[in-house]
């Protein structure tokens, strides 16, 4: 029973990280029908930003969480710049294939740029000190409060985000733009600005995910977002890409599948099971668990 509970909480914790990253994929996909391959790398950007700004915050006698806020801002800016510099020009001129290739290029660019920066380099950095320095003690009990905090923060973020898209003016504009761009223009919605804002929010979430990921695996390296990003993308597709609650559900499903497989079968089978579930769901429900058939409307 205690193994079961522990596995459950490990899965939920892992799932909340996947869910936050999946939200970034799904929001961007929802609004411009583009799989933002660079999104996983925004996690890396967030991770390094925290590593480098934490000592600064300590030196300035600012609270540690200020470096998280800073990382959110940096990720949001990187996300918005990606849209403005890379995706928007390609979208105006090219096909969806060229946009996809651009996304892969941005991903490689960010990873290689990071490696080229001498302070970062190819070797992983240990992130331990930022948590001990911040006084967040990772107590080694079944239900340590890092787990609780990870799940709690992620659930709060998701609820707030969902309410934001449902109830606020900007959130409604996002839903309109994701459904019908020309009708949105006729309503007076600035479509380009709405898209940039979506990038900012989705990318900001990557920074929060980075924090939680580092609390679990205290290591930062330039390709840290690659596998995490891929699994979160699978989560988004599983839940129904473009659908916000779908990303949350997909994230938790993948986290749980992974932790239960690791616990009860074998850790080497975890990824196999994740993809197996994906294939089964997509055969039964091609649009994903909560996916609606969203035709590409212009």
């Amino acid at each position, binding site marked *: 029973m205690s193994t079961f509970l522990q596995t459950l909480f490990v899965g939920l914790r892992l799932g909340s990280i996947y869910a936050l990253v999946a939200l970034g994929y799904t929001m961007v996909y929802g609004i411009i029908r583009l799989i933002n391959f660079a999104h996983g790398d925004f996690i890396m950007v967030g991770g390094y930003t925290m590593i480098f700004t934490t000592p600064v915050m300590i030196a300035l006698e600012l609270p540690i969480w200020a470096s998280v806020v800073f990382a959110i801002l940096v990720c949001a800016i990187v996300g918005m710049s990606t849209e403005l510099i890379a995706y928007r020009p390609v979208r105006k001129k090219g096909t969806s294939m060229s946009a996809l290739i651009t996304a892969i290029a941005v991903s490689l660019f960010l990873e290689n740029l990071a490696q080229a920066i001498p302070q970062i380099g190819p070797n992983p950095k240990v992130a331990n000190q930022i948590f001990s320095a911040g006084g967040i003690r990772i107590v080694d009990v079944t239900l340590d409060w890092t787990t609780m905090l990870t799940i709690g923060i992620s659930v709060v973020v998701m609820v707030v985000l969902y309410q934001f898209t449902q109830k606020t*003016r900007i959130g*409604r*504009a996002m*839903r*309109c733009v994701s*459904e*019908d761009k*020309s*009708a*949105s*223009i*006729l*309503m*007076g*919605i*600035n*479509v380009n600005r709405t898209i940039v804002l979506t990038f900012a929010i989705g990318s900001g979430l990557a920074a929060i995910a980075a924090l939680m990921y580092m609390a679990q695996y205290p290591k930062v390296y330039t390709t840290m977002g690659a596998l995490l990003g891929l699994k979160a993308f699978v989560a988004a597709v599983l839940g129904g890409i473009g659908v916000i609650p779908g990303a949350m559900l997909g994230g938790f499903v993948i986290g749980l599948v992974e932790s239960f497989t690791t616990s009860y079968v074998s850790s080497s089978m975890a990824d196999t099971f994740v993809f197996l579930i994906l294939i089964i769901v997509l055969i039964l429900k091609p649009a994903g668990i909560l996916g*609606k058939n969203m035709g590409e409307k212009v």
Partner: protein
Amino acid sequence: MLEIKDINVYYGAIHALKGVSLTVNDGELVSLVGANGAGKTTVLHTISGLLRTTTGEILLDGINLQKVPASSIIRMGLAHVPEGRHIFSRMSVEENLRMGAYIINDAKQINDNLERVYHHFPRLKERTRQLGGTLSGGEQQMLATGRALMTNPKILLMDEPSMGLSPILVNEIFSIIQQLHASGITILLVEQNAKKALAVADRAYVLETGKISMSGSAGTLAEDDRVRKAYLGA
């Protein structure tokens, strides 16, 4: 009120509008009729800024709309009911209507406009929480029209409001158009149903492969032999 002077519009190499000029005066209902593919939708899209001209002028109360960003044109008092309705299918009826008032910040004004639209379209009021995508074609047309009225526009562009509707609903939509006209809204109506469009309009233009071929009072055009042959099936 609305003055279009000699506009040319291209889709790549396709020359879709070849020097189109037309005027809509204050309080008028003007119909633009023509066969499928003549360029009627292109005219309306160009007015709304969804498409841009290479030449010519589009003036709304003297202001050149070509210099106004597309998403700001609704602020000039011009609302557009697009062809195919384009309602937000995953939003409720009421959310759709509220999106129509996106540019308005005053909650009281939005609620007043909402009540007015519900007064025009009681059928929408019965379905405030229903998702737009689950409405019938006629209800969707009412929703798209109601949504466009949410800003109290000076001028309304309507693109094929009767398309795909049953004859009873076609009559209902046209009687709504007449009501709106009677309430003082200026309307530019695009229709393939030339008979109805000429019956309700003050004046009309006939568009043929990107050019205005005829214009005049709606009554005169309805009597014209060429119009009768080509568009009224006589």
